[in-house]
């Protein structure tokens, strides 16, 4: 297709898409005027019913926990697919760790970057643990906290110590964590089925709203999802890092 024809096609497409968008936008509720009833209902009911002060987490891990199960396995399947696509193929070989050892380091990692990075690992890990365990009380939860936990390991790599990152997170352990985290969330759902007769029913004592141990199964679900997400992202990054730094073609 010539440049001119491509431009004509683009202009025609954007004219149609723009018209539809503008027509759609004119029918939206005004800014700040929320029409749906469900948000208001949940805002009023979540704390008395589930004893969790973060309504968003209560929705994600209780009222629509089954949807979250699906989302969780989307991430699981995506990372599984990536691990299969990026596996070491015939004709590729890994470089031995001590051979050309400098290339295992992040190019340009100065000692200042290393010091700042290593200083950040602890606080980042702590922040991740906080976000995972306080999902039922404040904004955050398993997904966000899990990525922060994985980021703590990524900082080890950025500080210039790729091999240390591999030692701190061995492949087998990361894979086990990802699978066990995903399974534990499904098992919590099954627990609801066994103890209350409904899949994902909140079957643990709800406790006092605002306390760390409250909202029944919600904090447990968050920890399971946190482990799964952290494992999934570490696996994702190490597969990519292996491709970029270690695996070589013939």
């Amino acid at each position, binding site marked *: 297709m010539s440049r001119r024809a491509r431009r004509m096609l683009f202009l025609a497409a954007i004219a149609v898409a723009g018209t539809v968008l503008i027509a759609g936008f004119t029918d939206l509720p005004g*800014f*700040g005027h929320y029409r749906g009833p469900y948000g208001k209902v949940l805002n009023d009911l979540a704390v008395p019913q589930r004893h969790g002060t*973060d309504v*968003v*987490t209560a929705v994600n891990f209780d009222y629509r926990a089954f949807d979250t199960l699906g989302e969780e396995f989307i991430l699981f399947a995506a990372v599984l697919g990536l691990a299969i696509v990026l596996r070491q193929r015939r004709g590729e070989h890994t470089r031995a760790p001590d051979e050309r050892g400098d290339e295992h380091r992040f190019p340009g990692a100065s000692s200042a970057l290393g010091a700042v990075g290593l200083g950040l690992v602890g606080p980042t890990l702590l922040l991740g643990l906080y*976000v995972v365990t306080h999902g039922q009380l404040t*904004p*955050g*939860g398993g*997904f*966000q906290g899990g*990525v*922060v936990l*994985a*980021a703590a390991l*990524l900082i080890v790599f950025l500080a210039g110590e790729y091999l240390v990152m591999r030692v701190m997170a061995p492949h087998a352990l990361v894979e086990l964590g990802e699978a066990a985290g995903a399974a534990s969330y499904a098992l919590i759902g099954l627990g609801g089925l066994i103890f209350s007769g409904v899949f994902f029913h909140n079957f643990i004592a709800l406790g006092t709203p605002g306390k760390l141990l409250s909202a029944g199964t919600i904090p447990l679900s968050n920890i399971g999802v946190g482990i799964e997400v952290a494992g999934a*992202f570490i696996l*994702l*990054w190490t597969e*990519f*890092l292996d*491709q*970029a*730094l270690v695996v070589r*073609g013939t």
Partner: protein
Amino acid sequence: MEPLQVMVLALLALGAPAVVLTHDPLRQAFVVGVYGLFLAALFFVLQAPDVALSEIVVATVALPIMILLALAKIREHEREDE
């Protein structure tokens, strides 16, 4: 609409073309991260801190790292082809 919301929306209107108009993919990885931070700020001033947290971790940690690693792999292929 609060003045803060107007300000963040204006930043987004500037940031989105900046991402598209950055041609070097290496720089684009950083610009898209900054754009993600603006987006997180928008979610925050619209009182959706949960969404803001998700946006921060995805846009500033997960996405740029994957772009950078893909670029590193592509460059290595180009070097081997030379």
